[in-house]
């Protein structure tokens, strides 16, 4: 009997699409030519534990002796046993009825079980969604003259959400219009000079600080975008979530 275990590891590029090469590309990846196609690919991004066991027969008696038969000669005929073994001579019945076969049976079941486990793991990995990628970028928002003084103005962002940009006089504030409590859309009430969430009466200052209602209790302010003024134009820093 032989038991073995090992772990293959090869580093790779974390994100092949980001333009940064983080791996070593070897011209002749493996030191011998027997891996076939793998030779063209090299070993990259590999984390693979493996284990296994093999069992070799000791020779001699194979399985149970033939049952005694009514016919006198055949069972004893030695030539009959010299036939090449058919498939079923390596048979489960022998494994089940022989005490010596117990270990073989156990190993066989373990082998089949590990195949099933491997396939299940693969299927789970296949079904489980990939990690979403967060992309940060700065995009053009509007000409600075576009934002009226004192009033909020909504701008639709590429991911579908809205930024409320308000010129508070001292500062340009760009706020997400999603209430941090349960995700309703807040709106700017010019008369009060506040943002109001219609769902549970959350109240926010012009700069997004929660002052009343559930958001204030939880201490959650409106999400704030960074707005930069470059010359006559406004740019906004957004973060997008991309589900690959």
């Amino acid at each position, binding site marked *: 009997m032989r038991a073995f275990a090992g772990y293959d590891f090869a580093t790779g590029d974390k994100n092949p699409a980001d333009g940064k090469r983080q791996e070593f590309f070897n011209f002749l990846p493996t030191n011998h030519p027997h891996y076939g196609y793998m030779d063209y690919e090299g070993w990259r991004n590999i984390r693979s534990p493996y284990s296994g066991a093999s069992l070799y027969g000791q020779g001699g008696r194979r399985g149970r002796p033939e049952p005694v038969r009514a016919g006198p000669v055949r069972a004893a005929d030695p030539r009959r046993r010299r036939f090449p073994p058919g*498939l*079923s001579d390596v048979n*489960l*019945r022998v494994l089940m009825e022989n005490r010596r076969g117990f270990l073989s049976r156990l190993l066989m079941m373990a082998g089949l079980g590990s195949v099933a486990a491997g396939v299940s793991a693969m*299927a789970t*990995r*296949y*079904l489980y969604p*990939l990690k979403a990628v967060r992309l940060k970028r700065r995009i053009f928002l509007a000409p600075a003259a576009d934002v009226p003084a004192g009033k909020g103005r909504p701008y639709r962002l590429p991911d579908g959400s809205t930024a409320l940009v308000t010129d508070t006089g001292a500062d340009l504030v760009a706020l997400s219009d999603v209430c941090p409590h349960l995700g309703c859309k807040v709106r700017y009430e010019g008369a009060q000079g506040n943002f109001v969430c219609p769902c549970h009466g959350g109240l926010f200052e012009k700069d997004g600080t929660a002052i009343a209602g559930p958001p204030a209790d939880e201490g959650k302010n409106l999400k704030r975008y960074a707005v930069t003024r470059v010359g006559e134009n406004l740019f906004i820093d957004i973060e997008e979530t991309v589900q690959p």
Partner: protein
Amino acid sequence: MTTAAPPPPDLEPVTPHGGRPLPPARTRFGRWLQRRVPVDLEALRYYSNEPVPNHLKHWWWCLGGTPAMLFTVQAATGILLSFYYVPDPSQAYESVRRVSEVVPFGWFLRSIHRWSSNLMIAAVILHMMRVFFTGAYRKPRELNWMIGIGLLGTTFFFGFTGYSLVYEQLSYWGATVAGNLTEAVPLIGTYLARLLRGGEMIGDNTLTRFFILHIGILPALITALLAGHILLFRLHGVTEFEFESARLRGPEEKKTFPFFPDHVMTELIIGIGLAFLLTCLAVIFPAGLAEKANPLLTPAHIKPEWYFFWTFRWLKLTGLTLAVLSIGFFGFLALVWPFIDQAIRRRRPASEISVKIGLAAVCALLVLTVWEAVATH
């Protein structure tokens, strides 16, 4: 005065509806289960564990289980693939690309699905040839042969709808050719083609139809046929053959071995071999992705999958209508072959003509297939 205490309720024999009382199971859990699932294990063992003739120890006689095993592989991988596939002409190709290139192990599952389909068709053909050339379709197994032909047709239809879903050039133009072939069927052709395509020509409906056929209707159909096939096969038992060697040794030589565990073991070994082969094929030759379907551009060289080569070559050799009619007639002959064979043997009992006809058919199909494979046009 003493009365015999009634047996504890747990030990009272269970009687299945309309059956005989079952001997109580040994363990407590066994008896609990027996009360809930009143199965006559004795009878089950009898029906599921028939003795199998000795010739089934040889690989060549075990091909029937292979397509069934591959079908389970197809069902499992197919269900997984359908999680990401989008049956919409504008998104289908992109979703297949995503499965192959982005989703972890997607390429592997898709390659297994593709290779397993090819192997399944090969296995069905080999199994059919074995049955044909050993005359196992003869009385009383004619109906099972006919179900088998149904299974062959379903498998072909599976293959065709399957590669149409990928929505690469071959998918689109294959579907176009198939639609026009269907139109060439006399009388009902036009209606049949419209039904298949969901319109006068290939459009938005077509892909949805192929998808539903491939993942809904055909699987249900093949499951029903397979159940019938296996049921009839179990009811008749494995065909007993008279081997030349056995005849020399004498009649008492008829040997059998139990279905379980011996034959199950054989099938298990075949199954593991298949899994190994499929894995190797999928890793060494993963399923690729050709150019996206372009309704405006027929590729210069277009060929169907290898199992349709013979029809393609035959189509080129004969006319459209003639090809459709002759292939239909050929299929009909294959379907009713057991009865034709019976008629021949009634007139000439010792005739080997069936085998010769079969050989001729195999040779013809092989020639057409190879011809198509090597020819560019």
